[in-house]
Each structure stands twice: as C-alpha cells, then as structure tokens.
C-alpha cells in the first residue's frame, strides 16, 4: 500500500493547541497525584494504629 501521498485523516493540531493540551495533561496528572496523596494521608490519620488490626 502506498498511501505516502495522502494527507493523514483527522484534525491536525497547531503548535499552540499541542502545547495547551500538554499543559492541561500535566495539570490533570498533578491534580490526580495530589488527590491520591490526600486520600493516603487521611486514611493513615483515620485508621491510625488500627491499620494493622484485621479480623483473622
């Protein structure tokens, strides 16, 4: 198949749009990471020493 000449289908993002998307992706990753840290810390505080206690 020689589709070398055909333009790729779909939307071609401009440099600015690509930069903005990368910027948003990093922000979402940081927000999710922060959320995980918050849940982890709150879990530690709530369970405290009981974190190792479980019914056998």
């Amino acid at each position: 198949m020689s589709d070398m000449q055909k333009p790729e289908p779909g939307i071609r993002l401009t440099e600015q749009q690509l930069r903005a998307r990368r910027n948003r992706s990093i922000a979402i990753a940081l927000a999710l990471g922060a959320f995980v840290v918050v849940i982890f810390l709150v879990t530690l505080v709530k369970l405290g020493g009981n974190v190792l206690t479980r019914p056998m």
Partner: protein
Amino acid sequence: MSVTVARVEPSIAGAGDYIELMKPRVMSLVVFTALVGLYVAPGHIHPVMAGAALLCIAVGAGAAGALNMWYDADIDAKMARTAGRPIPRGHIAPGDAAAFGMTLAAFSIVTLGVLINWFSAALLAFTIFFYVVIYTMWLKRSTAQNIVIGGAAGALPPMIGWAAATGSIAVEPIVLFLIIFFWTPPHFWALSLYRTEDYVRAGIPMLPVVAGATETRRQILLYTLILAPLGVAPWLLGYAGLGYGVVAVVTGAIMIALALRVRTEREDHNASKQLFAFSILYLFLLFAMLLVDRMTGGLSSLFA
C-alpha cells in the same frame, strides 16, 4: 433529517485559564474565612483532616466560580472589569467551563462528605447551589437586592469550616456569617458606585443603576452602621479577647467614617474607592484577629 453540527476548534486553554476560571482571589477569601471557622471551633481536628476539609471547600468555591463564569459569559464580555476572563477571551468554550464546574462541585462535595462529615458537605452543596442558581441565574439579573441576598453564599464558608470541625452549628459561626453578610453590600455597592456604567452596559440592576447614587450611598451607610457593632459582637459575647475587641472597635469606626464620607461625596469617587479598599482590609483583620486570639490560647482574654 440533517443536523448541523458546529465545528469545535481544539482547545487552546492551558491550566492557567482553568485556574482563572476558579476565581482564585475569591477562593483565597473563602479558604481564609473557612479556616477561621474551622480553627475557632471547639475540640480538636487533626491538621491533615483540617487541610483536607479546606481543600474540599476551596475546590467547591472554585466550582461555584467556574459555573458563575459559564452562566455570566455574555455579561462578562460587556464589562471592562470582566471582559478578559477565559470564556469572553475565547480561551475556554462555555460548555467546557460548565463541565469543569459541575465535575469539581460533585467531587468536592462527595469528598468532603466521605472524608469529614456529611453535614459540612451538605452546607457546601447548599453554598454552591445558592451562589450559582439563586444568585447568578436568578437574582443578579432581576433585582437590586442581588448582592444583599446573594451575599449569603459568600458568608457561609466560616459555617462550613465550623461544621467540618464539629459536625454541628452554634451561635459563634452564625455571628461570623452575619458579619460577612452585612459586610457584602457596603463592599460591593462602594465598587458599583464607580463602575456604574459597566453595570448599565451589561444590563445588571445594581442599586446605583436602579435607585441612583444617592440612595446607594444612604444604604451603604445603613449597612455599615449594622456591620460595625456586629464586628464587635464576638468580643461582647465572650468568644474573643480584648485584642480582637480593640481592632473591631477601631476598624469599625473607620468603616463608619468612610461610609459617612461616601454619603456626602458627589462627583469624584475617592471615598467610594477608599471604602471598597478598606472594607477588604477590615474583614481580613477581623478574621485574622479571631485566629490570633485562638492561637494565643485566649491570652488576650485575660485582660478582658
């Protein structure tokens, strides 16, 4: 049947645009007053839990800000003060802002409920609802009392903070609520006195537009006369020490003096600008003193 689909350009919005959508300056005031409510409440809340609660309240406030900007994009575009916001500037599509706001609102409410307690989560939900639906969608465009009633949304954060710490409500947070509630009209009307043309252009029935500048100046004074004694109330009721009392009396007197100057000013707006600027400092000082008072273990109350 043919359906026309508008072509949607890929977004050029960066993280900064979304942060702007959350009204960070309003958010900082919300976080600060909520922190005071949380900190002056009786009992002990673990710092991690307090931080998590404040984060949820901050995100909830951001959600309300984003939904406000989504709904108000048409009038924001007409006012000099707000024309540069992300939606009128064309950086964020209105639908994206609405989705962002709804997602954050749901997330902040559920997280606060699961991590802290459902009473404070319900208060947060009510605050977002009140700000977005009651104030933004209904009152803002229909009555000159818009910011008076809508001010309740801005006054609720100390109550949410208190509720996060205790799971209930008492007289103290209600006094804090009332202070912010009666602070809002003089604060915004002072601003609207020198931004009247903006509001006329946008068709918002702010008090100076509907009732005129003279009536607005009179009402600013009336609200300030209620506000100043309310500001002293935490000391008189024994919730705060002498240090707070002195600051509340002095700054309350300055607020009244500025409101009196606004009452008599005519053409230039120097007094209105001064009142607007000082009102921010006034509210900050009152709440900061409550915090200091509590931190020093009521040391200043020894002299009360």
